[in-house]
């Protein structure tokens, strides 16, 4: 299952998934608008992971935004920290903080920039990422803590494909498998690009799903924009098989805005006002 078919094809969906798609479109519009307003880059990377984050935050994660430090909460780590502009919008929409807090995004003294701040500084954040390859080891520690302390929470980490260049990812993968940590799941946002080139040309990533399997994980591929598929896979964690779980989610960088899709210029480009308006029209979000 890949997302290389028409990205805007809507598969038959249950009403909740339809709701999630509407939410995802709203989030995409806010990310694009925010990029224009604040000059925040990594637009393509943010748009590729929106459906994954939406599925997690609006359905899968057992979280209570009013009690963000609940010891039993599921932990989510955006290991590809440069997707923070997407996460910031989702946390606001989920009620971790008022939407108005994002008004000063990028201004002097604001918490909201290009990467997540520390958990001490913003509710809803479990790890201050930004340097790639850090989130999974920290997540493995969090999953291990659950076992030691007899807790049942799960840990979900979203990694980028470029991030899988980092050796620490595979160190963590081997350790999690050795410890049979089945309460941790990874979603690789496999948008086929990293900062300056095709991810499969820079490092020999393929076959990525087989790599995870070879490292002892239960692993599968999925369409990273198919919310139904993501929900059924992610909700089933832990699978009870004694293995950590990885989804190699095929995605499209810049997904949702036709002139950004699969164009790596949008790793750093900032949209103009006209481009924001065009993007919102495509997303069906009123300007």
């Amino acid at each position, binding site marked *: 299952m890949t997302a290389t078919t028409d990205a805007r094809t809507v598969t038959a969906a249950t009403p909740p998934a339809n709701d999630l798609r509407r939410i995802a479109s709203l989030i995409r519009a806010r990310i694009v608008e925010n990029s224009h307003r604040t000059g925040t880059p990594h637009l393509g990377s943010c748009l590729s992971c929106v459906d994954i984050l939406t599925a997690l935050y609006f359905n899968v994660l057992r979280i209570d935004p009013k009690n963000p430090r609940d*010891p039993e909460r599921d*932990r989510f780590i955006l290991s590809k920290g440069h997707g923070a502009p997407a996460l910031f919008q989702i946390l606001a929409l989920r009620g971790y903080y008022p939407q108005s807090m994002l008004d000063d995004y990028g201004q002097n003294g604001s918490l909201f920039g290009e990467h997540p701040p*520390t*958990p*001490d500084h913003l509710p809803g954040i*479990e*790890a*201050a990422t*930004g*340097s790639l*390859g*850090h989130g*999974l*080891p*920290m*997540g*493995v*520690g*969090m*999953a*291990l*803590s*659950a*076992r*030691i*302390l007899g807790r049942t929470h799960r840990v979900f980490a979203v990694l980028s494909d470029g991030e899988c260049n980092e*050796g*620490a990812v595979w*160190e*963590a993968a*081997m*350790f999690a498998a*050795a*410890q049979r940590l089945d309460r941790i799941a990874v979603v690789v946002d496999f948008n086929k690009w990293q900062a300056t080139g095709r991810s499969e040309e820079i490092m020999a990533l393929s076959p990525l799903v087989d790599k995870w399997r070879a490292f002892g994980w239960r692993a599968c591929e999925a369409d990273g924009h198919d919310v139904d598929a993501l929900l059924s896979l992610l909700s089933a964690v832990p699978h009870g098989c004694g293995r950590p779980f990885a989804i190699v989610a095929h995605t499209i960088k810049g997904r949702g805005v036709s002139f950004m899709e699969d164009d790596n210029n949008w790793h750093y480009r900032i949209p103009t006002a006209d481009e924001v308006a065009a993007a919102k029209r495509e997303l069906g979000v009123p300007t």
Partner: protein
Amino acid sequence: MRNAFADEITRLGVVDKRVTLLSGDIGNKLFDKFKDNNSDRFFNCGVAEANMMGMAAGLALNGLRPVVYTITPFTTTRCYEQIRVDVCYHRAPVVIVGTGAGLSYVDLGPTHHSCEDIAMLRVLPEMTVLCPCDANELRAALRAALKHDGPVYMRIGKKGEPVIHKSPPDFEIGRAITVREGSEICLISTGNVMRLALDVADQLGIIGIATRVESFHTVKPLDTQRLAQLFKQYRLVAAVEEHSRIGGLASAIAEWLSAQERQRAEFLGFSLADCFLHEVGSQDYARRRLGLSPEVIIAGIKRALATAA
């Protein structure tokens, strides 16, 4: 020192069920007792230090008190970014232990030497740097480290270091311990060179220079109150350390001095040369090759005193 560490962490692990020991595939049998008592809180993390340090941060942020243990370069420089970002930036209460610090592992070559670790760890915000001078100071330091609400780096030797304290001393992070009184000059030592500092003090005493010796087991935060007192009281203060002359205890004191008004005491630093050692030999041999010996220290102190007079 490492046997004392293993013994003390075993005791502490029994008392405090949050204590979780992570080892980087080292210490075969050393931690058998810890494992016997706390099998669910010991993890051999393999030869994968970046992951080990990141995991430690994840554990610490979720209610546990991880202690990370391996040979010094691998628990410091090998995973430096994980220490900086995952541990320090998150202010995660991880205790990082570097065993065989300085020139303890001479024969293993510079891959296993660690003469830069104090510099690299103390520059990190939120980090506390402890260098106990013997097994008993180590026990006390470890207890304090596990009570500290933030990251701690503890630099320890290997085994067979001379005993300085007969029992674990009263220990407070950031408060120096006076090991010997003396009225003329003061030596400030950190970590595993305390015996050398005391030997120097003995020899200076014989020629009429009564020498006080301080254990600055905490390099960060520096005991600035004690420093102010010492620089006021003595005409010469000298730092002794088994660490590069760049960035260690002597540097830390010089940094403090640079922000003070003129002090009475002259200050000397006795550290290791800024170079790799391409030879093997004893720890004493290695220290001498890198410029650290009682003779060098005594000659330097005599010269300074003669000039001052």
